[in-house]
């Protein structure tokens, strides 16, 4: 067995950690785009569309992310698509993220008091003008803290991509452990890696929340 110094372990984890960050960013950016579209469809579309969006959200919220990853990776293979672990993980995490963000954002739009719609309507603004000038700016403010908070779930969610062979922080930890067999040190370092990524985000979300509700906007 090769001798691994602590630095060797840390260095390898850091290198793999890059992919955790990249996958998180892809999932979050992709999820935000799809999620925004879904939110608008769910708020304004025809009832069959609204119903479909709700089904989509319920499906992704009601099944484990692990199964979604399996289905994206192995399911695609069964259907004859040869996709890489990269693609599968990106797609599954994007869809997962979009479902949750859609639900969070819908809640934020609905949290804007109905008096705001009425005031806009009485002043002659149509649906899109009301959304753009009155409702969305307020919903956006409400949405920032829970959205930042949810990004933590996305980062931790990427750990599951290790099971389909995607080499990120967790997978690198497992591989290093197979070689070095120092589970406590290695997995403690892996955990620390996630904590370093997530903790500033949760703190930031909490800060935003305080700023939002502490300002006494109402």
């Amino acid at each position, binding site marked *: 067995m090769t001798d691994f110094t602590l630095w060797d372990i840390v260095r390898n984890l850091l290198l793999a950690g890059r992919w955790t960050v990249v996958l998180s960013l892809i999932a979050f950016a992709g999820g935000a785009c799809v999620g925004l579209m879904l939110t608008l469809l769910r708020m304004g579309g025809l009832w069959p569309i609204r119903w479909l969006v709700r089904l989509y959200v319920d499906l992704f919220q009601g099944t484990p992310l692990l199964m979604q990853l399996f289905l994206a990776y192995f399911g695609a293979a069964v259907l004859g698509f040869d996709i890489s672990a990269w693609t599968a993980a990106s797609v599954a995490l994007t869809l997962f993220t979009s479902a949750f963000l859609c639900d969070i954002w819908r809640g934020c739009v609905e949290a804007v008091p109905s008096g705001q719609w009425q005031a806009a309507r009485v002043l002659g603004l149509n649906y899109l003008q009301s959304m753009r000038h009155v409702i969305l*700016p307020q919903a956006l403010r409400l949405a920032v803290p829970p959205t930042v908070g949810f990004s933590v779930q996305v980062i931790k969610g990427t750990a599951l991509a290790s099971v389909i062979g995607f080499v990120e922080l967790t997978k690198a930890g497992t591989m290093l452990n197979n070689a070095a067999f120092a589970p406590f040190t290695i997995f403690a370092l892996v955990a620390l890696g996630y904590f370093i990524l997530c903790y500033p985000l949760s703190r930031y979300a909490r800060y935003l929340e305080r700023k939002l509700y502490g300002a006494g906007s109402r």
Partner: protein
Amino acid sequence: MALVAVNDLHKSFGDLEVLKGIDLEIEAGEVVSVIGRSGSGKSTFLRCLNQLEHHDWGTIHLADQRLDGGAMSPGELSQNVGMVFQSFNLFPHKTVIENVMLAPVVVKQTPRAEARQIAEQMLDKVGMLEKIDAYPAQLSGGQQQRVAIARALAMQPKVLLCDEVTSALDPELVGEVLHVLESLAAEGMTLILVTHEMKFARDVSHRVVFMHHGHIHEAGDPQTLFTQPKTPELSQFIASIL
């Protein structure tokens, strides 16, 4: 020719018939107070006048033009009928001047400079010119309501509807809002107010309409109406609030 002509207005919410045939004509420059118990349909009536509620039957004309049934777009409606709410409903993310300028700029497509001029004029009228850059949260209830009045006036409507505009205010702030309405009335603005301020209804309005169970039960000039009510329902109502 009446400015507002309401004909046989009916409105139900499910099985509950809230308006059971309202007929009312209002002249330009008239100030009409609508009084009555809660549930008598007075707020619903007001909300039908600017189509926040769609009535089931009857017609509403404004200056001989059909107003209801989709005859006017929201944009046209807002330039005919303004409304002030009990809960102000100012846009909290916009400053006072932005609140007042929004509809003229977005709906009427008034150039910003001109819209600002109009907004300043209206804010001056309600005595809020010095708070132009404040956010609603920084204002008292009375100040917010005065801004809301300026915002409605900025669309230069022919009629201003006021839905219990002083009900959410602390007692010491009621006066400043009523004072603004009084000066609007003096300028000849047509006002239709749903109100619990009987003193105001008596002193400022030209006509008082008493609603009861979805009908106009009694109407007339305030002096006669308050001192010599014809129906037992109105005398009971007056007795209950005095």
